[in-house]
């Protein structure tokens, strides 16, 4: 999706707010929202890639005006609705629909340490052969998918070198749409800064992206 989230290389976003450190959460609601996303995620009605795509679909003007957590609120509401965990009526009234038995939350406080310590690995044991090898020159495809992708616009149709094969990972482009994990090799690819940005870039500098087999031109 050629959305506002795909910011790499854009101009005009102003100075870096280098002094904005503050606490982990700037207001209590940010922490509550952060925690609700994790806790509701334990229902496994969506996955991390679907959640990211929900954030990408926040309308561009809102995306830019909202703070990080406000943007996440907008996306979280949409994914709660589309997953069926809450209805629009419930959201509007702030009350559960009448006559529904109370559910049992899958994530309780005693499960948090294990969840935090284990996380949700994206590696898969599927015996998928790599299409590329370390040291190989590769060219990314010039694709313009309307749906989710982790191939940023600035790195499409560009040549780089595979420097590491990370093994087999879930492919987010399909996983985000609940079209399957399509496990495949993930590589770290080094692009010279000049390949991406032209002569204005420093000759020796480089940018690395982690890219899946499906992002490369054949052969």
């Amino acid at each position, binding site marked *: 999706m050629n959305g506002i989230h795909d910011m790499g290389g854009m101009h005009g*976003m102003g100075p870096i*707010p280098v002094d904005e*450190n503050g606490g982990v959460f700037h207001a209590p609601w940010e922490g509550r929202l952060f925690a609700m996303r994790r806790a509701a995620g334990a229902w496994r009605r969506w996955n991390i890639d679907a959640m990211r795509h929900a954030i990408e679909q926040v309308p561009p003007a809102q995306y830019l005006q909202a703070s990080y957590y406000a943007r996440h609120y907008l996306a979280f509401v949409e994914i709660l609705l589309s997953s069926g965990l809450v209805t629009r009526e419930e959201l509007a009234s702030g009350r559960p629909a009448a006559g529904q038995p109370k559910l049992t939350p899958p994530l309780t406080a005693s499960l948090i340490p294990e969840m935090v310590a284990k996380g949700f690995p994206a590696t898969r044991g599927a015996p998928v052969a790599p299409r590329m090898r370390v040291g190989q020159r590769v060219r990314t495809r010039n694709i313009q998918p309307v749906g989710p992708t982790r191939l940023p616009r600035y790195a499409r149709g560009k040549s780089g070198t595979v420097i590491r094969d990370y093994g087999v990972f879930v492919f987010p482009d399909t996983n985000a749409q609940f079209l399957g994990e399509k496990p495949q090799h993930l590589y770290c690819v080094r692009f010279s800064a000049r390949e991406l940005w032209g002569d204005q870039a420093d000759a020796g500098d480089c940018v690395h992206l*982690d890219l899946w087999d499906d992002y490369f031109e054949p052969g």
Partner: protein
Amino acid sequence: MASDVDHDHEHQDVPPDVALRVMSLESLLVEKGIVDKSALDALVDTYERKIGPRNGARVVARAWSDPAYKQRLLDDADRAIAELGYAGMQGEHMVVVENTPTVHNVVVCTLCSCYPWPVLGLPPVWYKSSAYRSRAVIDPRGVLREFGTSIPPGVEVRVWDSTAEIRYLVLPERPAGCAHLNEEELARLVTRDAMVGVVRDLLPAPAESA
């Protein structure tokens, strides 16, 4: 144009009353039994108090003190970081990249705000800002200058755009003049910003706690 601080405060108003809406959503989700209130409390507490850049600083100090550990860290970061007890959510797959006299590394996530939670905690505002995300890849040296970091022309800048589930941690160079410090004292020299790579030179005296 308003100052950055005012700018951020304006952000709080999109959507309007977001704080109230989040409160209302929490009461709905708790009442429906979708989330458990004490689980929310525990999650907030974990990321406010237990997991933060001190974890990463200990990893860096160990690498500075123990060459064999440093090699393990560069070869298999997941395993080496787990030796110190850190692992898990949003850092399941870690890679450590080393600064040297001729190489400087800096980490960004242009598409969202991926960040190595187990070793650095949750990302600061600037890491999540549109300004950082947009410019770190096209003008890393200019971005670093805004942090007061000047990279000499002979030093190669390597940007790592976290486009997948791999999370990157920068191993800064050990400052000169701290040979007498033990590992715990060394850890106090290491800042979050150096482990993201927006700061290059660490001071040989403890930094203010981040």
